[in-house]
């Protein structure tokens, strides 16, 4: 972990609109404060609330601007309006048996022995009066729907001038290109775009596809969880109330930690770190891979790709019995799917090293023990887009660009695979026009600098279309076959055990350890055994006690 540092920092937030429930406070029919959960951008049949909160300003006296406190003076909502727009749900974060028809096992009551690592914050357990236990949450009806698939919704609505109608904050949502072309066709509700493309896709049974938050912001706090874990997540040095984003980032890291632990503990072939299709998941990860991994898929809908097509982790492989609360239960998934490759396709790696080049450089440094050092070349002004050729850049990028190409089909700052079918390496839809520009929807994924008048080039693929096609699976296989991998692993392990950096005087030691490691099938035990028997290790700490008081 010291090498890869697979903990994602605060710069990255996992809070897709499709999975983030906001909680607003209105006045109920009895004049008392009442929480209601909803998703901004949720499509609704009712025109006045389409794409916004499910009760109008006329009904609540309030407007709810995104990520800001409500505005207006609250009035008590009428019971009929409340019942027409909302429903009460027993959600997953409160009920162990949320999948049953009538959940009864509420957190802290009938559900008496929850996992010690699962702890919703008090604000999610109490009603707006701050002392009445929450036994069910009120949520907008569309969000409460449990179906796995819905249909693409199109209104045929035309843009209108003037202020938004119905005292709305925003104009009525219009049909985008995808909605117009696919109206009435099925859409998977786990797809991130479903929230803005369908009126019959909600958060699933027990709101399982959504995360709660304690306020109007998208990253409201939800769970008490470890925040400093140098001795592991089971021995936290601090605990704090954090958001679902932090919650998931913790478990992404733990997936990598558990995976590496299993490789070493079971004395498996180290090359599995780069090539394995198996992994281990707990409840929150099962929930993520099952329901939420495709939550960022909105931008690719212009290519006809609204879900994760060929996911790096097949949702069908997720253990069905793992519930979101099972934080301490880890199960092995034998096969994540054909695109899985050890840690290279885990969210922890793909978000820690968010860009193609960062991912390539991380592999180069971590598994081949090499670094990029600029050559002694003057950087001259250049219009050459190919960094493998541009003077001053080529010394590093001639190596880095082909490495980065392995990740051309893995979305940056994300963990989705871009399938060849809807997004070919060379796509005529993204060709340059007469002025040398590509269509707007292409720019995130196709690189105009390497596109032509006949086709666009997938970003990053220019350096090696073969690497782009092979993806992380090919990267892992080629790294695993590299003779430098064994030497690099030996150097890292030896430096760790000796507590110092290796130097040229250690060449003989490295050679003998490498032989033990490689001949032992790239397993860690023969390497450690050989290292512990070496005179270098035995004399690494040979202070005598003489002279000490």
């Amino acid at each position, binding site marked *: *972990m*010291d090498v890869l*540092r*697979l*903990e*994602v*920092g*605060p710069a990255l937030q996992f809070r897709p609109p499709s999975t983030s429930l906001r909680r607003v406070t209105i006045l109920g029919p009895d004049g008392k404060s009442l929480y209601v959960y909803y998703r901004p951008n949720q499509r609704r049949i009712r025109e006045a609330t389409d794409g916004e909160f499910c009760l109008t300003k006329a009904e609540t006296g309030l407007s709810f601007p995104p990520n800001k406190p409500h505005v207006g003076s609250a009035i008590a909502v009428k019971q009929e309006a409340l019942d027409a727009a909302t429903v009460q749900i027993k959600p997953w974060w409160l009920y162990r048996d949320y999948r049953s028809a009538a959940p009864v096992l509420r957190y802290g009551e009938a559900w008496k022995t929850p996992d010690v690592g699962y702890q919703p914050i008090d604000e999610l357990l109490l009603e707006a009066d701050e002392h009445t236990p929450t036994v069910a949450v009120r949520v907008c009806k569309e969000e409460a729907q449990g179906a796995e698939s819905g249909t693409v919704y199109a209104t045929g609505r035309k843009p209108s001038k003037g202020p938004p109608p119905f005292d709305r904050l925003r104009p009525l949502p219009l049909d985008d290109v995808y909605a117009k072309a696919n109206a009435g066709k099925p859409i998977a509700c786990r797809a991130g775009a479903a929230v803005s493309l369908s009126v019959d896709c909600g958060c699933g049974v027990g709101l399982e596809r959504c995360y709660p938050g304690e306020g109007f912001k998208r990253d409201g706090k939800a769970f008490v969880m470890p925040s*400093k874990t*140098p*001795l592991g997540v089971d*021995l*936290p*040095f*601090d*605990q704090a109330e954090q958001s679902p984003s932090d919650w998931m980032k913790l478990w992404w*890291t733990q997936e990598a930690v558990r995976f590496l632990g299993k490789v070493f503990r079971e004395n498996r072939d180290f090359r599995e770190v780069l090539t394995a299709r198996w992994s281990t998941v707990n409840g929150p990860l099962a929930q993520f891979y099952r329901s939420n991994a495709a939550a960022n898929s909105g931008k690719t809908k212009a290519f006809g790709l609204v879900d994760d097509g060929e996911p790096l982790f097949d949702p069908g492989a997720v253990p069905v019995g793992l519930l979101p609360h099972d934080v301490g239960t880890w199960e092995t998934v034998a096969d994540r799917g054909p695109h899985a490759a050890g840690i290279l396709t885990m969210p922890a790696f793909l978000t820690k090293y968010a860009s193609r080049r960062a991912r390539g450089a991380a592999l180069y440094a971590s598994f081949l023990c090499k670094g990029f050092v600029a050559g002694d070349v003057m950087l001259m002004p250049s219009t050459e887009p190919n960094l493998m050729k541009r003077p001053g850049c080529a010394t590093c990028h001639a190596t880095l660009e082909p490495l980065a190409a392995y990740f051309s089909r893995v979305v940056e700052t994300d963990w989705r695979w871009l399938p060849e079918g809807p997004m070919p390496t060379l796509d005529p839809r993204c060709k340059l026009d007469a002025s040398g520009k590509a269509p707007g929807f292409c720019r995130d994924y196709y690189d105009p600098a390497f596109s032509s008048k006949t086709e666009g080039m997938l970003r990053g693929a220019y350096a090696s279309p073969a690497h782009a096609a092979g993806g992380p699976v090919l990267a892992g296989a080629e790294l695993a076959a590299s003779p430098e991998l064994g030497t690099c692993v030996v150097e890292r392990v030896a430096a760790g*055990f*000796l*507590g*110092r*950096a290796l*130097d040229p*005087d*250690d060449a*003989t*030691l490295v050679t003998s350890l490498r032989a033990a490691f490689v001949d032992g099938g790239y397993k860690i035990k023969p390497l450690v055994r050989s290292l512990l028997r070496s005179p*270098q290790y035995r*004399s*690494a*700490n040979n*202070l005598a*006690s003489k002279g*000490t*008081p």
Partner: protein
Amino acid sequence: MSRRAFAVVSGVALLAACYHPRDTIPAVPVAALPGHAALTVDTSPKSDLRMVPTEAYVRTYLALFGGLAPLELQKRARGADGAQLFDTWGDYLATLGLPDYKTDLPRARETNALMLATFERLGAALCDRAVEHDLRGSKPRVVFDFDAPKELDVTAFTPRFDVLHRTFLGYPEKLAPGRAARFFDLYAKTLTRHAGDAGKTGKDKPKLAPNEAAWAVVCEGLVRHPEFHLY
């Protein structure tokens, strides 16, 4: 010789005196140099001492505190004194040299004064809290697994010291000749220094009785001992 000729000759002589031909030493095999015939090239590693990972130290302290979890240790170390003896782990993790992967703060590869000071603070908290816990009758005793009479001579001190010695340094005190006597001297001097505290009351009353303070100092001496950090 004319005056002019003398000047020319003198100038040439002066130039000649200032000019030294470049020193050249003909290359010879190393073995031909005096005293080098029997020498071989030393290719053995010139390594530094191994630095034990901070995690190992921290786990040691957790064990010494009675197998507590980190957050429980923090609660115990703080006791009723707030942050006087121990703040929070969050204040110490970086100074202990632990990495922070979220912010890409690397692991400290060498010890430093702050790291040692932090360990000392942790050790002092451990010893003071252990005195309060163990020597006032709470069971099970964690560090001071013996009774502590108010008056001790070196003979009575030694077996008790041996308990601490084995706990902190991992071997019997008799294998470190003279150490028990030196620590008894420390114990006795501390006892003398605190003898005047016995009658104090109210806010002037120290938190530890004289013999408790003396045992705490012995404990701190061991937890700061170089061998403890190498053990």
